[in-house]
């Protein structure tokens, strides 16, 4: 696939599911502590999300960095919008802001607001 094809493919993935996590490994078998943290937060909030393992495809691993102008993985997308990586997601979760975004965007999740 060309660079453009990869960008188009990523665009389709983040549009196809309400919550998409580009991560190293899978939600059941994370391969990196940062990816695991974000998957755990989403799991804790009871959010149904699509996991895309960037280790399966080098072109996706590089392509996602260009897509969001963000140099690291994991990357969380809600309703097509890039939310952040591990630090930002954790900070937002602890502040209750992640839950607010999910509610505002109409994504089903647990009502809990505090830390795991």
């Amino acid at each position, binding site marked *: 696939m060309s660079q453009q094809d990869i960008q188009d493919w990523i665009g389709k993935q983040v549009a196809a599911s309400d919550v998409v996590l580009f991560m190293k490994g899978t939600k059941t078998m994370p391969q990196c502590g940062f990816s695991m943290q974000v998957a755990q937060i989403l799991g804790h909030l009871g959010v149904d999300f699509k996991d895309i393992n960037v280790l399966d495809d080098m072109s996706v691993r590089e392509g996602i960095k260009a897509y969001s*102008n963000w*140099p690291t993985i994991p990357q969380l997308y809600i309703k097509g919008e890039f*939310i*952040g990586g591990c*630090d930002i997601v954790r*900070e937002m979760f602890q502040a209750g802001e992640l839950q607010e975004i999910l509610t505002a965007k109409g994504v089903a999740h647990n009502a809990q607001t505090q830390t795991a």
Partner: protein
Amino acid sequence: MAMAAEEIARLIKESFPDAEIRIEDLAGDGDHYAASIVSEAFRGKTRVQQHQMVYAALKGRMGGALHALALKTAAP
């Protein structure tokens, strides 16, 4: 590959001269850092934008020479 904390601070200072920077070497291996940066430049920006500004200051080293840099950014 690793990077010294002083080098990280120097690059950040170059782009944000007013910044108050604190860098912690989390594992003592020169590869896992936490940085907290306070700069007027962050005012009115989203967290994603603030972190993107720091990554830009690091000139492509993030995700390469620098594997893990936990970021906390804020305006004074």
